[in-house]
């Protein structure tokens, strides 16, 4: 596997992402809307005594992780797009291992989602969130790994889908439970037992937990468990993505 090939393939996606100005602005603003509307809207309904931080500070790491989930998942639509517009054939006939193509896709997905995360983490303090800058820096690798895992899931779906509609349908079906059962919006202490089980089975819960622990000092699981689950998920889904992508025929 040649690093230069991965770089150029990933660069292609990032260049296209940056070139599409309207989409870029919408993508970067969307998470801020969550902080403004949900954060300030529900602030008074939230009991700071339960976690020790105000709701906006509590929510920001959840929104950052959510941004990674949405943007990494949907970045895989470029595979469906490439198939529909023919570019996929150019990639599949190239003398490059399929795993290289998958890795490049995962990297470009996490780079673009990191742009969103950076905006969230830079703007949040201006909105009054108390984020530990050093902790936020340490949260970046966790979010990168999580973004790559999510994009691998997207690639797995996209490799089996022939249409935009099919991809959109499956992805929405996956993304909503992953998001809502993750603790991005609520603390994990004292949940009803059934919900607690579902949340514990959801890898995103651990990504949110690590990010929140590092950024605002509130967490439910040990950080090593968080990191282990995220990396394990990445390895598992990454392998699945390579397998699905390799089986695909143009």
């Amino acid at each position, binding site marked *: 596997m040649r690093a230069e090939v991965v770089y150029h393939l990933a660069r292609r996606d990032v260049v296209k992402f940056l070139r599409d100005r309207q989409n870029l602005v919408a993508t970067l603003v969307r998470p801020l809307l969550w902080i403004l509307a949900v954060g300030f809207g529900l602030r008074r309904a939230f009991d700071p005594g339960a976690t020790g931080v105000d709701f906006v500070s509590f929510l920001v790491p959840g929104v950052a992780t959510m941004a990674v989930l949405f943007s990494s998942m949907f970045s895989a639509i470029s595979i469906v797009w490439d198939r529909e517009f*023919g570019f996929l054939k150019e990639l599949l*006939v190239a003398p490059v291992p399929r795993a290289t193509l998958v890795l490049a896709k995962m990297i470009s997905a996490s780079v673009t989602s990191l742009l969103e995360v950076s905006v969230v983490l830079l703007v949040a303090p201006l909105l009054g969130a108390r984020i530990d800058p050093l902790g936020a820096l340490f949260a970046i690798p966790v979010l990168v790994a999580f973004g790559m895992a999510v994009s691998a899931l997207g690639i797995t779906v996209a490799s089996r889908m022939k249409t935009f509609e099919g991809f959109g349908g499956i992805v929405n079906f996956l993304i909503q439970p992953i998001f809502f059962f993750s603790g991005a919006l609520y603390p994990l202490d004292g949940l009803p037992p059934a919900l607690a089980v579902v949340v514990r089975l959801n890898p995103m819960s651990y990504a949110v937990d690590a990010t929140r622990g590092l950024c605002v000092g509130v967490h439910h699981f040990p950080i090593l468990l968080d990191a282990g689950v995220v990396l394990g998920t990445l390895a598992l889904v990454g392998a699945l993505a390579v397998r699905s992508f390799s089986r695909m025929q143009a």
Partner: protein
Amino acid sequence: MNPSPAIEVRDLSKRFGDVEAVRGVSFTVQEGEIFGFLGPNGAGKTTTIKMLCTLLAPTSGVLRLAGFDVTKSPDDVRRAIGVIFQDPSLDDRLTAEENLLLHAVVYGVPRAERRARLDEALAFVDLADRKKDLVRTFSGGMKRRLEIARGLVHRPRVLFLDEPTTGLDPQTRKATWEVLRGLRDRNGMTLFLTTHYMDEAEHCDRIAVIDHGRIVAEDSPEALKRAVGKDVVFVRTNEPAALCDVLAERYGLTPDRTEEGLCFRVEDGEAFVVRLVSEARVAVTGIAVRRPTLDDVFLALTGRQIRNGNGDAGRDRMRAMARRR
């Protein structure tokens, strides 16, 4: 030069479920040849080209390309070939230069040579002045030329072209063919192409006529036409009924009535019309003799004319829709 042929295919078959798209095809293409696969849509042309390009696994048969086994060492084959697909395969949100650069990197063109190769390829297809422009602003003909340029960046030994000039206007088609001939003449590149255009097949050194997944004839265009033999003669007259009788009684011909007059096939058409004019007592107002075309060859071989299907209409609509998003 490598002594092995550019392409060697033996007993190649491909079945999709119950459908046998390619049924036991064999042929050999020598280095530096322009070899054409001629047949109607759905004859198995694209399926064969996809198997040769490592995009589709054959059901059975032997496929060797530039000496490499296509199923056993696909990456060696991929490095040795360039492919220009039937449908566009450029990234139209990138510039011409970016498309070519990505290709050069992926195919392992050394960094020091990239700039020169890109400029050379773009100049070759006359797009040097558009290299910084997004491909989406290009016309169909320009995109086609850019795809050809991209296929050349890694200097493949064999270039595959699936329906290379479909959907292009006659002028662009002619220009494209000049480019392709130049490649063979200047660089000794081997060209393998599929087409359902007869005039395009005329450009090939050799053609294989393919129908229902089988090769029904394989030779140079000239030899194929010679094999069909007879010239086509058109005769105009004000008394078609009388001339019909003469042709039938005297020469045993059954002419068709067409817009260009009565039409029939005979050996050595010119000599025949001289005899006809002197012997027949019917006033003739016009005569045309034409050599057999590949259309006639195809008709003689398969009993059908090559039809010009339009299976891609739905897909194009889908694309147009997707583009609006």
